[in-house]
């Protein structure tokens, strides 16, 4: 529960990338099939204990990825969508790209975790192009994942480097998908996206709701 008593934001210590990934990982139950986007989302896998069976999927047709290989033990034929070398767990399997995206588009993934530039209070996500004039942006599988997975969680910094809020009323950047995100993990808080808008589920210690609101364009709500 957010603590609205402590009002001094300078005391709150924002989460680092690893801690953000760990926070996401803590919410992924055993048995889920999960696709992790490039960047912080990829780190999530490192924070899921191996004995908790979560089936990680990658767009390039790898289902059941395991921990990163030890240096010198990489298999040159086994990479993920971020082109990093990965391992395969017992029970893993390979598909071609059309079947891999059938898994994605067909709603078979329990969860996709993506990074983003902006998330709006209606669940719109913008994560692939930084402006309408971005001449040659790269979209990859983001639109398929955002539209196709059962749940879309976004993990990102709460604001841009120059302090501009990323949790907004309406996205200003080109959209990846409409109304797709259901939860946002930032370096300051965890927020659900509900018909009311952003609902704060969790905050870092020492941060007040007012301070969080000051860093957020959209209106924040408390759980009903």
């Amino acid at each position, binding site marked *: 529960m957010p603590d609205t008593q402590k009002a001094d934001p300078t005391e709150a210590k924002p989460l680092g990338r690893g801690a953000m990934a760990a926070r996401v990982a803590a919410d992924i139950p055993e048995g889920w099939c999960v696709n992790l986007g490039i960047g912080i989302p990829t780190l999530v896998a490192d924070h899921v204990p191996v004995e908790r069976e979560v089936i990680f999927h990658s767009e390039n047709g790898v289902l059941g990825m395991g921990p990163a290989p030890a240096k010198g033990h990489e298999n040159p034929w086994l990479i993920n969508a971020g082109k990093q070398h990965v391992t395969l767990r017992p*029970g893993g399997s*390979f598909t071609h790209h059309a079947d891999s995206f059938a898994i994605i588009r067909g709603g078979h993934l329990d969860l996709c975790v993506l990074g983003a530039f902006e998330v709006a209070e209606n669940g719109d996500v913008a994560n692939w192009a930084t402006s309408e004039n971005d001449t040659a942006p790269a979209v990859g599988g983001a639109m398929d994942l955002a539209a196709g997975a059962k749940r879309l969680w976004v993990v990102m910094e709460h604001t841009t480097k120059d302090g501009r809020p990323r949790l907004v009323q309406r996205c200003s950047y080109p959209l990846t998908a409409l109304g797709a995100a259901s939860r946002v993990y930032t370096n300051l808080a965890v927020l659900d996206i509900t018909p009311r808008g952003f609902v704060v589920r969790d905050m870092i210690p020492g941060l007040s709701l007012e301070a969080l609101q000051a860093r957020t364009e959209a209106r924040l709500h408390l759980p009903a």
Partner: protein
Amino acid sequence: MANGFVDRERGGWTSMIDKTVRSMAEAMAGIADGSTILLGGFGAVGQPNALLDGLIEQGATDLTVVANNAGTGHVGLARLMELGRVRRIICSYPRSVGSVVFEEMFRAGKLELELVPQGTLAERMRAAGAGIPAFFTPTAYGTKLAAGKETREINGRHCVLEHALPGDVALVEAWEADRWGNLTYRLSGRNFNPVMAMAAKLTIVQTQHIVELGALDPQCVVTPGIFVNRVLHVPYGDPPL
């Protein structure tokens, strides 16, 4: 999906993904009246006969059944129909040798039939599994099976718009399965089974063999476990010759 169990070596509770179920009752649990059932197999090969018997036992009624054929003799699908449990059948080849129950009930108006070309039937289920709500195909254009359907000329070919055909439940026969639900099939026993496995909300598998996780070649898995919910070990034996 995840069953808790005591890991004695670690001395505590842990759990793991285990889609195997111990009984037919567990395999059939929750199949509701009015469900659409996708029924794998082609001819006598790759048919989930044990699961069909389980469904007969389980009692769900007012069913829509999607299968290539409409049953033969008085067993399996034919029995289910005879018991009045099937409202509607969607298939490509209802009338075949021994399809007496279907023919009688259909003539008597006790069974609705949606006749679908075999490839369109397969593709409509693949579309359901792949998140493609509708697609255009040249198959059946200009025939009575396209009557009333939207048509469009694309690159000089006349096409018919066909919609995805999802199932509530798929009944599938596999050759090998592991506890994640990864499947292989036996020769032409593959047929509709992998397509139906991906098209249903609840995919139930009877498998001839259960193997250890990791025993299947990851490059030869035909249905990845992500499409499978329950696996029942039924060493059913070969189809009749």
